[in-house]
């Protein structure tokens, strides 16, 4: 039997962080009890981030420097895909420059989608990329607004250099309705936590755990790391105690991230893999209308499989803010007065978008076959020697080092997160273009600031409900440097 399993992985957590104390303070007048949850910070999507953009970043972290041409399948999971009928995996495949001949399946509809999707990809046994990306929304002043976060984790599955192989699994389904969200509704409806703990976690999870251990031929004492995704505070500790688990309880990334929906268990698996030693056994548990339990064995190849950013790098790159209304506005939770400038039309010509997909999706500059100048966008003739573009070859700017040449902070334009930082980005390979710069911390930007590229929502067409995506620059975190 050929070996198969996780060959590389990656993660992304939005850099925006909100101190939970700021959320509690905003609601103190009507929900003083939230203060009890006011520890640390949670992640939240910048205005231009969503399950698609986070998936791209996690995917890039997983595939960086690796050959993806042999992939046969691409799986994506989220409970908050931006569209009801427009496939996230199709959108994500462009910026990741995945091969076009891919089988794809997108899933959601349960908190378990991240593990059930990964399990299905592992069961299929063919080279695949699987990404779970989620941005669970919560009502203002709800407990979930305090505890939720956002993030994405990605796994490349293959036959060579397997770093973690699945040695056992157990699953169940049950119409146990701990919470639900009606189609078309913004927010979940949650039942009492004590009932979920006693009748849900305590009864449904152990059954699946036993099945997984039997499948693996292991006992709980053989497990080194338990990664249990819990929407409830203290849920992982409760399950661990119940299972009489005495190993490493994987951090729930509550500080700096928060519960990331269907991406939570995959993020915790990624975190465990970032420090696991060869031979370690990792048990992943997720819950939602049943349970999924996956048992992995880490191999000697783990060192080479670790990502440059991962969960740890993402946690270290936070930009903490105390502006609660900023998070609320980014999540469409408040209708602010943006002025008449925001009335500008944002319709995307889908014909043009499709025609230009090569350079727009994978950020492909053109290298002139005549003079060698690298340029973006690729127009009809070389900007320098005027040779026709049919002599251009593609050069992606996604991972090309870059820095600020000139910049400004624009307070005049309509921009959902003022000021709009914009400037000339000079790439090391000679390409240059005006770009939006996002995730700028309090230190601002200056001439020469090193930059990295990210895939983001360029513009939201609120009238038609369509997002136009493109690449933007962010100040380099350093975590990303190879």
């Amino acid at each position, binding site marked *: 039997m050929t070996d198969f399993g996780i060959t590389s992985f990656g993660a992304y957590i939005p850099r925006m962080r909100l101190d939970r104390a700021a959320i509690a303070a905003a609601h103190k007048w009507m929900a003083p009890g939230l203060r009890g949850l006011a520890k640390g910070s949670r992640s939240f999507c910048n205005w231009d981030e969503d399950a698609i953009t986070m998936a791209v970043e996690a995917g890039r972290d997983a595939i960086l420097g690796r050959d993806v041409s042999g992939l046969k399948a691409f799986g994506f999971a989220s409970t908050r895909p931006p569209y009801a009928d427009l496939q996230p995996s199709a959108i994500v495949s462009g910026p990741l420059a995945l091969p076009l001949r891919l089988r794809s399946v997108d899933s959601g509809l349960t908190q378990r989608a991240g593990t059930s999707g990964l399990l299905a990809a592992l069961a299929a046994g063919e080279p695949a990329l699987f990404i779970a990306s989620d941005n669970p929304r919560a009502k203002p002043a709800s407990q979930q607004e305090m505890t939720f976060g956002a993030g994405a984790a990605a796994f490349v599955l293959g036959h060579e250099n397997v770093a973690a192989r699945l040695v056992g699994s157990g699953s169940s389904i049950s119409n146990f309705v701990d919470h639900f969200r009606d189609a078309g509704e913004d927010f979940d409806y949650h039942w009492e936590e004590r009932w979920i703990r006693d009748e849900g976690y305590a009864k449904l999870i152990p059954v699946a755990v036993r099945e997984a251990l039997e499948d693996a031929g292991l006992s709980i004492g053989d497990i080194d790391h338990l990664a249990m995704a819990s929407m409830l505070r203290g849920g992982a500790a409760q399950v661990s105690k119940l299972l009489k688990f005495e190993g490493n309880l994987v951090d729930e990334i509550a500080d700096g991230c928060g519960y990331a929906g269907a991406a939570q268990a995959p993020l915790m698996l990624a975190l465990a893999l970032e420090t696991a030693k060869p031979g370690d056994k990792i048990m992943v548990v997720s819950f939602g209308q049943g349970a999924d339990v996956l048992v992995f064995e880490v191999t000697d190849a783990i060192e080479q499989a670790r990502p440059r950013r991962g969960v740890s790098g993402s946690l270290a790159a936070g930009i903490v803010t105390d502006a609660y209304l900023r998070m609320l506005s980014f999540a469409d939770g408040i209708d602010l007065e943006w*002025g*008449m*400038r925001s009335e*500008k*039309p944002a319709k*995307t*010509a889908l*014909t*043009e*978008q499709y025609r*230009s997909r090569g350079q*727009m999706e994978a950020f492909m500059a053109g290298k002139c076959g005549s003079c060698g*100048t690298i*340029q*973006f*966008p690729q*127009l009809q003739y070389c*900007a*320098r020697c005027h040779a026709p573009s049919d002599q251009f070859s593609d050069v992606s700017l996604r991972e090309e080092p870059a820095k600020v*040449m*000139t*910049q*400004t*902070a*624009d*307070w*005049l*334009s*309509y*921009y959902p997160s003022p*000021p*709009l930082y*914009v*400037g*000339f980005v*000079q790439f090391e390979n*000679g*390409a*240059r*273009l*005006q*770009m*939006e710069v996002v995730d700028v911390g309090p230190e601002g930007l200056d*001439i020469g600031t090193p930059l990295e590229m990210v895939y983001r929502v*360029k*513009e939201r067409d609120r009238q038609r409900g369509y997002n*136009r995506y*493109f*690449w933007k620059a962010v100040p380099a975190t350093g975590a990303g440097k190879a």
Partner: protein
Amino acid sequence: MATGIKDKVAILGAGCSKFGERWDVGSPEIMAEAFEEALADAGIERKDIEAAWFGCWGDGINVGNSSIPAAVALRLDGIPVTRIENMCGTGTEALRGAAYAVASGAVDIALAIGSEKLKDTGFGGLPPPFKGTFNDLWMPMGSAPAGFAQLADGYRTRFQISKEDLKRAISHVSWKSHQNGQYSPKAHFQKPVPMDKIMNAPMIADPLGLFDCSGVSDGAACAIVTTPEIAKALGKKNIVTIKSLQISTSSGRETQLSDWDGASVPNTRTAIKAAYEEAGITRPQEQVSLTEVHDCFSITELVTMEDLGLSEDGHAVTDVLDGKFDRDGKIPCQIDGGLKCFGHPIGASGLRMAYEIYTQLQGRAGERQLPNPSLGVTHNLGGVPYQGIAAVSILGLI
């Protein structure tokens, strides 16, 4: 070999409406205001005009597309009227159309009129323009000041100027224009503003504060052109001719290639080089009496002084601070207040500049009249410094 249009075309008459927040009038009335002044100045009748060029930038807030609205507003019965749009170069582009028609011999008398009604948008500033279906996919949605503000970083990098020194110099640019504006009865802003207020104004696009940005105004300006011979025959005195009209449009080199350092506007340099050649000017710092340049933002004017060869490269900051371009300086700039204070109704601006130079050369500028000017340069910059249109004209006494 082309010989250019030097002295082949004269300004027979010019007109300019009051600029500013013209809540009282719409586009047709404001065009008529400038048109009637020009007709009276030229001493001709409407029927003597054989062709017209109409410049207008934003059709969504004006009169709509095509030349028809201008022909209807001014009742230009059946003559060819051409609508022109070339961003902030629009007004100069209209003048070029009319001047070339006369220079070619196609017509004897032609009209150039530019008009813009920006204060019908409901907010301050310009409406965000549509960039095209392809460019919208990737171009950032920055404002006009965001595009020009970046000249500051480019300039600081090349000449190692501190942020503070550059801010002081660009503040002086605006301070000087406000000083000049008080002598321009048709200007949008006619009050001097103290330096500290300029320096400490709210930020629009770093380092440009509120007073580093030109006025957003309603206005119209026009010129009636003919040959110098006809002007003379009609009894025109102190005849002002067009020495040169040049336009340079970016092919995208600055944005796409890494050669340009962001400290100057190459299109301005290309256009003025051609213009000085056409006009036979070899020593601009000695020969040019005054300029009206595109001070859409203070930093633009500072950089333009070098681009026009009126400051040596790297010397604009000290020249500006030394008062070289003040009203009593060596080469006064924006004697009428410029875009900053006279106002910037986009399609009209190039023609407003020509109107001021013409008026100064004719010696009819009243309180702001300069002593014995003989040659003036106008300069517009459309688009953004890294991908734009430079439009220059040189006007002088014959």
